[in-house]
């Protein structure tokens, strides 16, 4: 479903702040795979997601989604195949617009927008049922401004928006990192439910090793712009945090694993 071929990305090229974010990354995702992507700060995991989504143009290499080369497509064109949820709950939704207006915008992703009315009565009923499945009590507050919602509610809504029109690829960029632990668990449960029910091909970036091990059927670890580990199937199911750390130690040639953010799992 997704093929990333020999992608390079360097920021601030030619200056003292030069930073190689992606160093010859290749990655293939089959249809229905749920991949967790883990790595420390600056490992390039968010950059990879942003390159796939078209936020950043790649320096070299190609990105293929479902057989179509999207490497040169602008962000809003690629969006028709992608569902995205961001780390910051403020970024995934339009705060000054109503819940139903946000959903209606997402429902039209990839469609040509016209001068037809922005939301229909039939859609409204559909959204109400859909919000009911979240069990957050949002189904009776369709016309509430999204800015009034909590971070967790906003992320749950953003998830719904990302998957409302079934994406070929779902990109989750640490979408629970800004939430309190209890809410994070709830949003992750909703995530798993939606991904499983719709058999969505998913790439989920996380800081949290336990989450990376617990969710999905394949785990990828990045370090300094490269893929260090790629574990799937039975091996992934048996994985523990300790084993992941020791394998990281070997793979990164004895380099100390000092990233607090990764150890804090």
């Amino acid at each position, binding site marked *: 479903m997704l093929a990333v071929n020999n992608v390079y990305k360097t920021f601030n090229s030619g200056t003292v702040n030069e930073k190689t974010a992606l160093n010859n990354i290749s990655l293939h995702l089959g249809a229905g795979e749920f991949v967790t992507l883990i790595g420390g700060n600056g490992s390039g995991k968010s950059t990879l997601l942003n390159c796939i989504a078209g936020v950043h143009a790649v320096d070299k290499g190609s990105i293929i989604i479902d057989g179509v080369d999207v490497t040169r497509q602008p962000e*809003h064109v690629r*969006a028709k195949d992608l569902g*995205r949820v961001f780390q910051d709950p*403020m970024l*995934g939704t*339009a705060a000054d*617009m109503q819940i139903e207006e946000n959903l209606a*915008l997402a429902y039209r992703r990839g469609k040509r927008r*016209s001068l037809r009315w*922005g939301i229909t009565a039939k859609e409204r009923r559909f959204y109400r049922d859909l919000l009911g499945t979240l069990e957050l009590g949002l189904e009776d507050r369709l016309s509430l401004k999204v800015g009034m919602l909590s971070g967790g509610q906003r992320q749950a809504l953003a998830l719904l928006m990302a998957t409302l029109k079934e994406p070929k690829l779902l990109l989750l960029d640490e979408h629970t990192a800004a939430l309190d632990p209890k809410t994070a668990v709830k949003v992750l449960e909703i995530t798993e439910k939606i991904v499983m029910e719709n058999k969505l091909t998913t790439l989920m970036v996380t800081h949290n090793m336990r989450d990376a091990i617990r969710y999905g059927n394949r785990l990828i670890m990045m370090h300094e712009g490269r893929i260090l580990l790629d574990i799937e199937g039975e091996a992934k199911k048996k994985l523990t945090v300790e084993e992941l750390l020791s394998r990281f130690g070997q793979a990164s040639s004895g380099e100390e694993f000092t990233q607090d953010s990764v150890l804090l799992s």
Partner: protein
Amino acid sequence: MLQMIMSAVMLGLIWSVMTIGVYITFRILGIADLTVEGSIAMGGAIAAQAIYSGSDPYWAAFLAILGGMAAGLATGILHTKLKIPALLSGILTMIALYSINLRILGKANLSLLRMNTVFSPFKEMSFIQNKAFAGWGISHFMGVIIPAALCVLGIIILLYWFFGTEIGSAIRATGNNSQMARAQGINTNNMIMLGLIISNGLVALSGALIAQQQGFADIQMGIGSIVIGLASLIIGEVLFGKRGFFSRLLSLVLGAITYRIIIAFVLDRGMSPNDLKLFTALTVAFALSLPVIKSSVQQLVKGIREGR
């Protein structure tokens, strides 16, 4: 007194078309668009020159709208395609328009004395000429107020519809959260351009109406107009609330009228007309800084209370 208020209502209605244009860029798109200063004069210049050359006044107003839209498009291209900051893009177009407007007018100002305007047919209507209005000395104002009010109402209904459509919603989403809009497949560059085009089309229409009401177009008529637009917008929001979209649009019109009433009042109290722009600028600066003033006053009050 009645004449003063009617005059303020008349000017407020005509200028409210511009205020609505400023609202689209400033509040919906989140851009302070200085193109307005040039496109309002452009609207006046195009309309005046067209009428002077023998065109139908309605056709002249239509041409003015097209001119304003082109100005908005120019700013939109500078900002979205050439990546020049929005404020600077507006300034560049505004400055360029000064020369273009001079070319349109051929000189610094053009009089429309004894020419037919969009308001002429209304001024001659019998019910506007009736004794009651004439007796109060306001039939002249009513000849402008009635068509202007109809025009503003039409614009409000049209915009209310438009911003509820799929494209209109996409423009609102772009202004509210452009990253989210792109992730939902919205071409945010096109939406910003479209917003600027609509906004400046309205501003130019306002300029065309102003020129026809005052009976001349002047190269200087745009100076300070963005501040007048912002003042009207903020007065409208503060005094008349910002609940639904329809009431928001209506509050812009009421804000523009209130602004004119305030101006008429301070002039009547003996303020020099030369100080008007200073007064308006201070009003807007004060209104825009209200949130900061409010919070620091709250801090102060809290501090005093805890000090005791």
